[in-house]
């Protein structure tokens, strides 16, 4: 069961470099061949690129407060994901300073009975040089009372 006392818990800031090769890799993996990603010397990143914080936060102990929530991995699912950009998405060559916090933990009755527990983590991305907020990510995880349904 997720722990509501973690609301407001904040991770340590961590750095992330937006890199051209990584943009090309993620664009290819999401079946894009757009020249703005593939050919531009300083491409903008794709809309879901900031998910690659995986590579940066794991090298920065204490940066990811998500595990504090204790959603059961057997019954947990990624329910919703949002990215907001306050201008064009960050370009290759940008160094970002990222910081995550637990925004909310709440419960809802499921459609088929049982209580669903939701947890939301927000990550802010600032330009490391200017300090300007360039993007935000909002991840919603859900824990069901039973394991997710298997293949129908």
């Amino acid at each position: 069961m997720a722990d509501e006392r973690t609301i407001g818990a904040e991770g340590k800031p961590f750095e992330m470099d937006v890199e051209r090769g990584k943009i090309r890799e993620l664009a290819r993996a999401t079946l894009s061949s757009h020249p703005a990603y593939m050919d531009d010397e300083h491409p903008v990143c794709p809309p879901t690129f900031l998910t690659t914080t995986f590579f940066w936060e794991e090298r920065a102990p204490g940066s990811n407060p998500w595990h504090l929530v204790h959603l059961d991995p057997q019954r947990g699912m990624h329910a919703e994901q949002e990215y907001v950009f306050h201008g064009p998405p960050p370009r290759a060559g940008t160094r970002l300073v990222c910081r995550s916090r637990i925004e909310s933990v709440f419960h809802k009755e499921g459609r088929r009975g049982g209580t669903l527990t939701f947890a939301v983590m927000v990550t802010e991305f600032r330009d490391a040089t200017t300090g300007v907020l360039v993007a935000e990510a909002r991840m919603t995880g859900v824990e069901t009372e039973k394991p997710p349904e298997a293949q129908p």
Partner: protein
Amino acid sequence: MTARWDELEPGATAPERRVGPLTRTDFVRYQGASGDMNPVHHDEVFARAAGYDAPLGVGMFHAGVMATWATDWLGPENVRGFKVRWKEPVWPGDVLTIGGRVAKRTEKDGERRVEVEIVCTRQTGGVAAQATAVFVVPASG
């Protein structure tokens, strides 16, 4: 070329994109790129032990393809928001159809924006994911 403002009335669409049949390779390529190496998406033994018949599709993979559909239409540099909600699982062998339409458009402080609704549908007719994306439409467009 990206779409022009006068073409982006509410209800305006772009051609659907069909993707698949999805392979385990699609999932693995995405996982390697994203850094999310959850074995339930590629390790058959692990997936079966978790109660699935096959590796579970990666939600962020088809979310990313939905984003690709939108940036192909409206331009990678113009995106200002993307929000996805997953509805039902996707499996190897699935054929996904991605399409959408302009839900609304706004003009504020001289900046033109469109909000696009995107749907990812499985070959069964089941909806795998729904998304909304926000794009600016440059004045020259």
